[in-house]
């Protein structure tokens, strides 16, 4: 049995006599010790779905079984007990503003029935783990965003949970700080074998952190795959859109600006592995007579598996260009025309 089993879950909200289906008939199995990502645009229902795992959101239909306990049918007491073993970290940290860092963590410990006398030592250990041992008596407002999220993690881990739910936990942070938080989460996952369910709209996170990933669109899971397959070979249109947006974003604005108005087509070519596309490019160029200039080439590593990404600019006769695009489509794993 999987650690988290979500079966046929739907969540419907009543809003002014209108029914809004935030989650539609979702089924997922998440295994113990894995880092499972759920990606999608905002409003896709990710936050709602993840909240059904600890019962913050009651599904209108379906069951959620966590560690063998049906969260949807649990009594108040059983639900509180289950929540103690499910940590939750939030996009906006959600620390108690008027309580110190130590008091924030003490709250979670008290909620979990941790004896008061032993709390200072536990708080020390938890803050040490996230590198904030000397900030115990500070208030949240005195910390930076990244530090607040570290406190959020320490609080979530207070009662030695076996599951950690993360709701856009890095989305309010700059890229560098987000990487730090991701490193901490990875470390926690490896050392403490805590299952992590992480929802985000940021593909950078997916690339670095996730083992498996589900793509969500309009309340439904449209694709379930590994992190590597998501980037290398996305199947659903939503996954393609997300991955391409992530890859396209990498093309510098200066380059786009320079090519604006010039006739031609920008293509992003994606291929698995780290071998070169040079032969293909030479071949297509000489057989169709188009000029192909390489704008950018790089290799993304997803869990140390390579995906090559190449941006090229094709110029020449319109008919030759479309022939070239056709040939690329046949010979390269994935070809995407970049909007200009």
């Amino acid at each position, binding site marked *: 049995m999987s650690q988290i089993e979500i079966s046929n879950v739907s969540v419907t909200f009543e809003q002014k006599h209108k029914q809004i289906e935030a989650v539609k008939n979702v089924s997922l199995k998440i295994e113990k010790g894995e880092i499972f990502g759920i990606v999608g645009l905002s409003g896709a229902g990710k936050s709602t779905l993840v909240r059904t795992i600890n019962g913050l959101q009651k599904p209108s239909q379906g069951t959620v079984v966590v560690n063998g306990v049906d969260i949807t049918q649990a009594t108040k007491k059983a639900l*509180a007990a289950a929540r103690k073993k499910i940590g*939750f970290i939030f996009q906006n940290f959600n620390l108690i503003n008027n309580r110190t860092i130590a008091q924030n963590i003490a709250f979670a410990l008290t909620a979990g029935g941790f004896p008061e006398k032993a709390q200072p030592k536990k708080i020390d250990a938890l803050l040490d783990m996230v590198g904030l041992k000397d900030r115990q008596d500070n208030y949240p407002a005195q910390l930076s965003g990244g530090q607040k999220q570290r406190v959020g993690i320490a609080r979530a881990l207070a009662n030695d949970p076996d599951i950690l739910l993360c709701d856009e936990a890095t989305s309010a942070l700059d890229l560098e700080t987000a990487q730090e938080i991701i490193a901490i989460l990875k470390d926690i996952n490896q050392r403490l074998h805590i299952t992590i369910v992480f929802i985000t709209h940021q593909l950078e996170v997916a690339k670095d952190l996730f083992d498996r990933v589900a793509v969500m669109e309009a309340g439904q899971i449209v694709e379930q795959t590994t992190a590597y397959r998501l980037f290398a070979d996305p199947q659903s249109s939503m996954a393609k859109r997300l991955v391409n947006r992530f890859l396209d974003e990498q093309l510098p604005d200066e380059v786009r600006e320079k090519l604006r108005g010039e006739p031609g087509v920008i293509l992003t070519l994606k291929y698995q592995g780290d071998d070169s596309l040079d032969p293909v490019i030479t071949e297509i160029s000489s057989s169709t007579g188009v000029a192909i200039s390489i704008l950018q080439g790089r290799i993304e590593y997803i869990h140390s598996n390579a995906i090559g990404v190449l941006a090229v600019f094709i110029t020449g006769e319109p008919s030759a260009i479309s022939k070239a695009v056709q040939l690329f489509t046949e010979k390269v794993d994935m070809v995407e025309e970049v909007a200009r």
Partner: protein
Amino acid sequence: MNETIQILKANLGQSLWETTEMVLISGIIGIVFGTLIGLALYYYSNRLFSPKPVVNAVVGFIINAIRSFPFLILMVVLIPFAKLVAGDPYTPMGGTVSLSVAAVPFFARIAESAFAEIDEGIIEAARSTGANFWLIFQEVLFPEALPSLIRGIVLTIISLIGYSAMVGTIGAGGIGNLAIQFGYNRYDTGVLISVIVILVIIVQIIQWIGDFLAVHYTRS
């Protein structure tokens, strides 16, 4: 002038004490019961706790009904009730009864909005630890709402000082009574001015202490 000083000497201490008594007792009753009712209104309206729209609407209606009474009329209407509770309605204790009845719903709305202002995310985080409501109240709702509650307490006390002067007009004592009896009925402008000056000073001091405490308990 001499007469004014004599009147003040003879009556001011007593009047001030009566006002203090009325404001303090009704203030405490208002704050304690108002907080409880405000907390209940919040609890029964927030989706993260236990939304019960009917309970909320009924309690809300009762509060609004009491609050829609102009205080002077509430006071008159409550004379029989004050008699029942305090014996003589025309005493500071009698006045305290109607002041308390006014203070409770007033503070209930203040407390409700102080709790409702708290970021829902913080409540969600608290809920997800498995904490029970009592713990959440002590460790989350109370500290987060405290600055707003303090400002509300200042507002309530200052309003009660004003209302207590009205209680004075029906003879229930206090500093308002002093101003009416001597300043208005006996044309002693000196007494009237003294009372005004004292009230201004008291209100300023309360406001100042309240602001100081509210800032002190806001850690951001």
